[in-house]
């Protein structure tokens, strides 16, 4: 039954209104997410800013909030990330190279690929348990930096592998063909051409993976990073604490001052992460512009 022009017109008006409302709703929702981030950062800043001074950066944790600082946590984090980088970058990039350049499309490659995708989704606390059982207990590495670093490396390895593979895939096949046709082996081609070309993409992925590692707390708790560390680690076998652990410790205390200390620690942590992410985005933008 055809509608009269009057009815059609009213119908259309209603439909257009609905569309406008919907569009505005989606926009509002999205921008409130942005607003939320702003609120979160603002909250943290006003809570913690007052505690940020050189004494804070230079002191060890203490029962007295006025004397407490994040020196040991900061140094611990630096040690930890350094070790994680040294372990996970070669292994991760090597795996990505193997899968993209050497392995072909057979069964084994497919199994490894699915396996890595699954590992990427395993909760971080399970990695913590793995680290506890294998590195701390079985290999008797105790609650040391190296245990933490190995555990974290396993955690971020899938992230590095997946990001590196993506970067390697963008290298045009023509370059490889040219190299092979000159009598180069697969490794010569990978080393001289594929790796340099995919380097920026790999760097971006590595930076993002490491920034994930910096913020992870659960695995470190599992392997026993201590929460009251009044010394600086001097070698990989030393026990340690890290920024997120220290923050967690302070947050879980009832006193208000410790919450504010935690906020100060969070500011430091977020500042570090912001710098790392900004670097990664900068590298990514520079590469994308170059390719255009």
């Amino acid at each position, binding site marked *: 039954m055809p509608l009269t022009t009057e009815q059609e017109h009213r119908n259309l008006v209603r*439909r257009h209104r*609905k*569309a406008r409302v*919907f*569009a505005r709703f*989606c*926009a509002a*929702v*999205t921008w*409130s*997410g942005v607003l939320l*981030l702003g609120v*979160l950062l603002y*909250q*943290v800043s006003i809570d913690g800013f007052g505690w940020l001074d050189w004494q804070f950066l230079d002191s060890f944790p203490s029962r007295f909030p006025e004397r407490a600082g994040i020196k040991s946590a900061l140094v611990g984090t630096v040690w930890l990330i350094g070790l994680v980088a040294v372990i996970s970058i*070669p292994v991760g990039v*090597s*795996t990505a190279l*193997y*899968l993209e350049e*050497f*392995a072909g499309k057979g069964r084994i490659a497919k*199994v*490894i690929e699915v*396996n*890595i*995708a*699954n*590992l990427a*989704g*395993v*909760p971080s*606390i*399970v990695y*913590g*348990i*793995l680290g*506890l059982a*294998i590195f701390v207990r079985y290999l008797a590495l105790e609650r040391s930096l190296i245990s933490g670093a190995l555990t974290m490396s396993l955690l971020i*390895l899938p992230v590095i592998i997946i990001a590196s593979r993506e970067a390697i895939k963008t290298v045009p096949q023509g370059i490889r063909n040219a190299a092979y046709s000159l009598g180069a*082996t*697969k*490794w010569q081609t990978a080393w001289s051409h594929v790796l340099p070309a995919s380097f920026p993409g790999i760097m971006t992925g590595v930076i993002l993976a490491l*920034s994930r590692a910096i*913020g992870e*707390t*659960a695995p470190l708790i*599992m392997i026993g990073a201590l929460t009251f560390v009044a010394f600086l680690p001097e070698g990989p076998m030393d026990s340690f604490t890290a920024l997120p652990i220290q*923050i*967690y410790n302070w*947050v*879980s205390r009832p006193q208000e001052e410790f*919450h504010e200390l935690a*906020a100060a620690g*969070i500011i430091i942590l*977020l500042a570090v*992460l*912001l710098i790392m*992410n900004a670097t990664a*985005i900068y590298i990514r933008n520079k590469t994308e512009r170059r390719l255009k």
Partner: protein
Amino acid sequence: MTQERETDTPVAEIQDVPRAPASIKKSGIRWGEFLIKGWLGLCAFVSIATTAAIVILLLSETLNFFETVSPGEFFLGTTWTPLFEPSSYGVLPLMWGTLIVTIGAAIIAIPTGLASAIYLSEYASDKVRRIIKPVLELLAGIPTVVYGYFALTFVTPLLRSVIPDIQVFNALSAAIVVGIMILPMIATLSDNALRAVPESLRQGAYALGATSYEVTTRVVVPAGLSGVMASFLLAISRAIGETMAVTLAAGQTPNMSLSMFESIQTMTAYIVQVSLGDTPTGGIAYQTLFAVATLLFVITLVINIVSQVILNRFREVYE
């Protein structure tokens, strides 16, 4: 027709070009290449070894656990007090805690995440995208302990001013914060899924006189549905595995109350609680760690696999 086999004169006689060795046969193994390929393969093997280690470890300790505690008591019991006397090993309260936090987070994150994704892919200009995408990445990169802090110092007091009965440690606070945490994930992945829908589908619908609302809800989202649903599943899996925010915000009281205003304990929070305490190795309490971890691992694994299957079907349709 037969052809005579012609003998090969050394090329140097005809061309005045210095020649490489005449044979194209293999002259021994290229050791460098062999060793490097070995190293690369070994690295690739690390990922397999990791999975194997996780599976073997969790399974063996869980089997040990089930020698003491029956699976029936574990899976069907409703009291969880493994660290006290009298000890009881029913894991349902922990699963319940995880469930209500996850569902609460999903209720918050799924509609808003999807709405954001729709806005980003269908309505937002490039300039707006360039602002919002990095913001989403930032939100996604914030460590979970920061969200725990946010829950305790901002969300909970806010809730308490509105709902006077609410406890200091409560499930709602945790659910809100976890929801905020997984929102960027849903937004980004769904945005990718919706953008992958071919423009021709949209244009066909517009050409029939549909409004943007109708095109989006009846054409684009259904077309990108598998990618969108996969993003939901991945986000839920992430929420289930979330540790620090729930530990800080929701407390350590395993119970099966229906109220979100009370303290509960999730599976992950329990694991943290045990490892922060002094649990002797080998005791039954130590083994509960692995039993709960195995449960967590299996649940997240199943969800991840399902989402991958859905995603693969999604790729087939467009490629």
